[in-house]
């Protein structure tokens, strides 16, 4: 079976009114070489990629925007750098106007050292953005209760962190991620913390619907290779999850029958 055939077995994901074709969402931060970024994005197969909103400067111009347009990759603007509801809503409105999309990755952080989400502000921002017709995909802590609150506030997807942004520590609390995924009525996207492809597969096996990866690819020694690995890991994780894992057991269970065994050879003395 070719990779293409397997990929076709993985259905698209509905996020609010948006159809996510590929379950690997990519970030664009953490890499200075735009050409290398482009290669990595193409290798990842991603159809949705995040950008941040910043003041227009003649130096930065609109290079990322043009590149994503040229590659036909949909844009997921984030509200990175926002600390308050007010800043988050304004940033989202600017993103919608500039990029002509209702998608918004809601990211309200508590402080710049941990970059952990401020869930109180996040909850309020989510409610306001949903009211304003956005499709909020909400970065949050790995807490099942908070995930449900966000869903009820209008989140189109909840995006719990595996570990703090950029740490590459993997999924620190797999039990909570699994619990969030099992109880959510909206898609769950594992966001932040992934360091290697295997952890993307693990996220999918735990029941996440998609994975967002930035640093793990863009800061890898070979971004293109890690992009390809992560793409396959997401596919593998999805298929593994849907295949149904065996239950965990205390003791070994032989897979070869004991019947018909030859007589043991007498021990030589």
């Amino acid at each position, binding site marked *: 079976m070719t990779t293409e055939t397997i990929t076709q077995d993985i259905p698209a994901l509905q996020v609010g009114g948006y159809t996510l074709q590929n379950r690997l969402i990519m*970030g*664009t*931060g953490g*890499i200075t070489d735009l050409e290398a*970024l482009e290669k990595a994005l193409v290798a990842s197969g991603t159809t949705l990629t*995040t*950008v*941040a*909103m*910043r*003041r*227009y*400067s*003649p130096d*930065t*111009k*609109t290079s*990322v*925007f*043009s590149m*994503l*347009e040229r590659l036909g990759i949909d*844009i*997921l*603007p*984030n509200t*990175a750098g926002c600390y308050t509801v007010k800043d988050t809503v*304004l940033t989202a*409105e*600017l*993103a*919608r*106007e*500039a*990029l*002509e999309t209702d998608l918004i*990755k809601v*990211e309200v952080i508590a402080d710049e050292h941990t970059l952990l989400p401020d869930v109180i502000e996040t909850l309020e921002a989510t409610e306001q953005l949903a009211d304003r017709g956005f499709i909020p995909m909400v970065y949050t802590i790995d807490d099942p209760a908070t995930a449900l609150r966000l869903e009820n506030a209008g989140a189109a997807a909840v995006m719990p962190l595996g570990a703090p942004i950029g740490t590459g520590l993997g999924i620190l609390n797999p039990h909570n991620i699994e619990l969030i995924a099992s109880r959510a009525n909206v898609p769950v996207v594992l966001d932040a913390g992934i360091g290697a492809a295997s952890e993307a597969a693990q996220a999918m096996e735990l029941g996440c619907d998609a994975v*967002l990866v*930035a640093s793990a690819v863009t800061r890898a020694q070979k971004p293109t290779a890690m992009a390809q690995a992560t793409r396959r890991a997401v596919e593998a994780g999805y298929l593994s999850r849907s295949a149904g894992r065996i239950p965990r057991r205390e003791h070994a269970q032989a897979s070869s029958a004991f019947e018909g065994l030859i007589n043991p050879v007498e021990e030589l003395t």
Partner: protein
Amino acid sequence: MLTVSINEEDVKLPEGATLVDAVAHLTGRELNADGTPVDGGRLGVAVAVGSAVVPRSRWAATELTGGEELEIVTAVQGG
């Protein structure tokens, strides 16, 4: 001439200038009256005046009088 602040830098624009002129000045691209680039494609920028987003459809009708504080943003790498 009138002076407005664009991304916290003072910029002089001719009397009667609108938001279309301000955006064209900053981006260095020629714009149609509806705010789209003359050379085609999408501009990918948004404008806020005093913390309120002004949709592109209203740029041409928004005349500047001087002293306004404009934020003009675009997508950059991130996330």
